[in-house]
Each structure stands twice: as structure tokens, then as C-alpha cells.
């Protein structure tokens, strides 16, 4: 009966994920998967030989309640870090299972013992790494943290983790001290590994930890002989790995590079000095430029999300369209903090899908655009990615906004973006800066266009 229910849950998960992969059925997909989860959880209470039910229910109420509250309350723009933190919790749970099993210390075969340790390592790294990712996106950690010999130290910590892991695998009944050291080192490695990663790389990292947690869950599933955990964990592990690759590819950087290069902080001085000066423009002139243009391309970025400007921007676009201006949205694959982040926000505002274009679809159209309106995007339109081999983002495909006849950049202040890289686009002759919060600027633009 329990096995049958787990089987049903696994089927529901896969069907749910399948439905989530099409916009029409996506909503139903999560409900299916949710039903699978409820079935699996309820039936587990009838697992033979269990005790500690009081503690179990209490823990579920605390963990579930806190997650329910934060999940309902959080703003749409903060979704990425919430996914990071929930994902980290999953990794932590997998590591906890391994810890309990290791403390008990009686494994049927060495294979199970190895899998338990492997799952513990992966789960711990996903846990502490995701927490750092959360702290970074939440703004608790502002910059990429780099220190001398960082990679060497990381490597040493990882090696030490492996040594203790091997001790655990090859000891009959692992000693408490070794177990403790193993988990501490694994957690430390997750932190050290994530600290230097910043900027545009965060989506890739969250996706990677998502895949890792899936794998850890699958490994612990083997240890517990739980088919639902094996299947669900493996499916997520594979899907997450593919998604991670897609994202890394979108940035034209191999995954190893993302993880080990210390993005956004190295070689700051070696970069070509940016020449020219930033030229400001007022909302009135900007609105006039766009209202009398033939074609306007809008490039949204994380700043749009922060300012919650999507509704106002769409209102502005509709006004432009009434005046006969052709407007398109250009979305970079890693704009925002997660792939598809901008699509979600624009969908929320009611922008039809057929006005939204991917990088490849629209990049050739920029030279024909009269005005490109960049709202809160930075690295994804930085021409240094094409021109400057010393730039940390060199080689990343970008939206060629600089090739348009005019560029208007909506930006809150003069500083560099999330990745800390100076943007040459802002200094070009055909670029005008429109300072202000995205939503406020969009409101001003709407007012100005109405007066024209």
C-alpha cells in the first residue's frame, strides 16, 4: 500500500512537471505534483516501525508554516532568492537524513554507505551554498568576496571534506567526530564556493544547486529504499542539470568558468578605460524621441523588477502603439536573476507573448531601431562583452543595443550594476541617461506622451 502510494506520487510528479512545460497546462501541473506530495506525505505516517510522531508533526508545522508565510508574502521580484532558500532547505534535509543514517551506522552494503556520504556531501554544499546565494540576492552580501589564494583554499577544504568522507565510507561504524568534521567541512565548502560568484552568474548557480539537491535526494532515496525519492530526485537532478547547461550556454561561459573564475571582481584595473561622459536627458525629451520614432525596442533588466515598473512600462508602450510606433521587447536569456524572470514579470503586466523576443530573434533588428529603451538592465547590453577581451564578461552574447540610432538608459544612479562592471554603452555619443526609479520614470513618460 505504501509502495503503491509512492508509485502514484512519482507518476504525479512526472506528469505534473510535464504539464508545467506548457503555458496552457502549467497551472494544473503544480496542482498534480502537489497532490502527489500530499499522498506521499500522508502515507509515510503509516510506514512500519516509526515513532516520534509528535516531533514529526511539530517540525512539519514549524517548517511548513514558516515557508507558507514567507512564500505567500514575498514580492514577485524576490522570487529567485526564495527559490534559492527553499532549495537549500531541501539540500539540508537530505544531509540530515544522511547524518541520522551515519549515526546509526549499520548499512547493508558499502554501496549504501557510499551513497549516504555522497548525498550528504552534495546536500550540505547545496544547503550552505543556497543560503549564500539567498544572502547575495537579498542584498545581505553586497559584493563578490575574493581573497588571496582563494581557489587553493577552496581546493584544500574540498580535499579535506573528501578525506573525511572516505573515512566515513570505510569505517564500520563511523565515529561521531569524523561525522561532525565531515559535515562542517562540506558546509564550509558550500559557503566558500559560492562567495566569489556574483552578478549575472547567480541564476546558473541557483539552478546548479537545484540539480544538486535533486541528486542528493535521489542518493538518500537509495539509502532508505524509497522509490518516490529516487525517482523525483533523479528527475530533478537531470532536469536541473540540463537547465543549468542551457543557462551557462546563454552566457557563453563553460560551467567551470562560472564556478571558479570569481566573476565581476577580477581584473578591474586591466579593463579598457571607458572614455566619454554620460549625458543626461529629461523625461520630456525622452518621451518625444520615442513618440516620434518608427521603431522602439525595450530592454528590461533586474531594475525593472526592483522598481515594479512592468505595469507602467506596458501602459507607456500601449500609448506609443496608439501613435503608430512599433514596439518590441528584447529579453536577454539571463536578464534579471533567473532565466525567464523578465518574461514572468511582463506576463504579469499583460504584455502579449508575441511582442517579446529572444536574443537571437531580435539582435539583427537593433540597427533599424530608432530608440532602444534600456530599463534597469546593465551587463546584458554592455558592448565590452564584444570588444574588450579583458572584461570579465567578454564573450557573453549581449543585446546589441549600442547599434541602435539612439539609446535611452533608465537607471537609478550612476554606479555600476550588480556585477560591478562599468558599462561602455552609457558613455556612447548616441546614449542618453534618464535617471530615476523605473516606475517613476515610466509614469513621467506616460504623462509626457499624453501631452504631446
Amino acid at each position, binding site marked *: 500500500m505504501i509502495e503503491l502510494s509512492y508509485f502514484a506520487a512519482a507518476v504525479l510528479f512526472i506528469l505534473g512537471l510535464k504539464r508545467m512545460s506548457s503555458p496552457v497546462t502549467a497551472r494544473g501541473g503544480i496542482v498534480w505534483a502537489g497532490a502527489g506530495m500530499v499522498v506521499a506525505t500522508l502515507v509515510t505516517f503509516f510506514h512500519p516501525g516509526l515513532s516520534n510522531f509528535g516531533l514529526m508533526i511539530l517540525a512539519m508545522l514549524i517548517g511548513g508554516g514558516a515557508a507558507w508565510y514567507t512564500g505567500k508574502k514575498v514580492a514577485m521580484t524576490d522570487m529567485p532568492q526564495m527559490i534559492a532558500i527553499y532549495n537549500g532547505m531541501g539540500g539540508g534535509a537530505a544531509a540530515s537524513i544522511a547524518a541520522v543514517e551515519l549515526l546509526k551506522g549499520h548499512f547493508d552494503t558499502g554501496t549504501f554507505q557510499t551513497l549516504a556520504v555522497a548525498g550528504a556531501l552534495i546536500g550540505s554544499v547545496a544547503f550552505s551554498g543556497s543560503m549564500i546565494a539567498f544572502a547575495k540576492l537579498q542584498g545581505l552580501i553586497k559584493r563578490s568576496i575574493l581573497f588571496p589564494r582563494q581557489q587553493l583554499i577552496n581546493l584544500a577544504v574540498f580535499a579535506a571534506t573528501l578525506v573525511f568522507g572516505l573515512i566515513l565510507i570505510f569505517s564500520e561504524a563511523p565515529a561521531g567526530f569524523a561525522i561532525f568534521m565531515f559535515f562542517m567541512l562540506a558546509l564550509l565548502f558550500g559557503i566558500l564556493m559560492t562567495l566569489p560568484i556574483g552578478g549575472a552568474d547567480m541564476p546558473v548557480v541557483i539552478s546548479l544547486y537545484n540539480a544538486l539537491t535533486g541528486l542528493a535526494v535521489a542518493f538518500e532515496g537509495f539509502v532508505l529504499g524509497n522509490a518516490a525519492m529516487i525517482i523525483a530526485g533523479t528527475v530533478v537532478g*537531470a532536469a536541473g542539470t540540463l537547465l543549468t547547461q542551457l543557462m551557462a550556454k546563454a552566457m557563453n561561459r563553460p560551467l567551470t568558468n562560472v564556478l571558479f573564475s570569481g566573476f565581476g571582481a577580477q581584473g578591474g584595473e586591466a579593463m579598457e578605460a571607458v572614455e566619454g561622459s554620460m549625458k543626461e536627458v529629461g523625461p520630456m525629451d525622452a518621451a518625444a524621441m520615442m513618440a516620434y520614432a518608427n521603431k522602439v525596442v525595450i530592454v528590461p533588466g533586474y531594475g525593472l523588477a526592483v522598481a515594479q515598473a512592468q505595469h507602467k512600462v506596458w501602459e507607456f508602450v500601449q500609448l506609443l502603439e496608439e501613435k503608430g510606433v512599433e514596439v518590441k521587447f528584447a529579453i536577454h536569456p539571463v536578464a534579471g536573476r533567473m532565466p525567464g524572470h523578465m518574461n514572468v514579470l511582463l*506576463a504579469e503586466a499583460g504584455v502579449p507573448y508575441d511582442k517579446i523576443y529572444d536574443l537571437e530573434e531580435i539582435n539583427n533588428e537593433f540597427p533599424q531601431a530608432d530608440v532602444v529603451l534600456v530599463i534597469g538592465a546593465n551587463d546584458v547590453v554592455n558592448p565590452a562583452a564584444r570588444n574588450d577581451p579583458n572584461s570579465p564578461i567578454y564573450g557573453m552574447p549581449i543585446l546589441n543595443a549600442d547599434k541602435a540610432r539612439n539609446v535611452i538608459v533608465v537607471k537609478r544612479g550612476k554606479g555600476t550594476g550588480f556585477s560591478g562592471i562599468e558599462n561602455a554603452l552609457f558613455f556612447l555619443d548616441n546614449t542618453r541617461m534618464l535617471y530615476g526609479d523605473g516606475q517613476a520614470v515610466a509614469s513621467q513618460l506616460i504623462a509626457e506622451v499624453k501631452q504631446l
Partner: protein
Amino acid sequence: MIEGFTALYIFMLAGFVGYEVIGRVPVILHTPLMSGSNFVHGIVLVGAMVALGHAQTDLERMIGFIGVMLGAGNAVGGYVVTERMLEMFKSSKEKPQ
């Protein structure tokens, strides 16, 4: 119990399924899908429940308790966030502009 090659078969097939499922996803759904798959590995809750249920010493109970708490957070949080995100997609379809 699932052992040896049966386990390997399950692992292989499930991996294939995961790869296939996401291979056909439009970019627009990447974020919700990442969130959805994040929810799916919330099944770890079940394992944590079993671990806590079998715990005998206080230390085991404590770690098991933390595990169940984290697992429940993963499952519930993953669900709430994914549902909110997908709900938005629905509403944008209902009032096409």
C-alpha cells in the same frame, strides 16, 4: 528494498525522463519550471520523516527534527511560490490585450 541493477535502471530511466521533460520547455517557463522542480525534490520530506521516525538517541532525534523542518519548508515553500508564479500566467491569458 530496491537494490543493485534495479536501482541503476530506475536511476537511468528517471534521469532520461527529467532530461526529456525539460528539453521541450519554452524559455518563458524556465523560472516557474525551476521552481516546480525545486518543489518536486521536496519529497525529501518523506525521507526525513522516516529518518526521524527511526531515530533512537536524542542527537538523532534533533537532527531528524531539523531534517523534517527543512524538508517541509522545501515542499511547502516550493509549492506556494510555484503556484503564485503560474497563477500569474493564467491571469495574463484571461485578459488578453
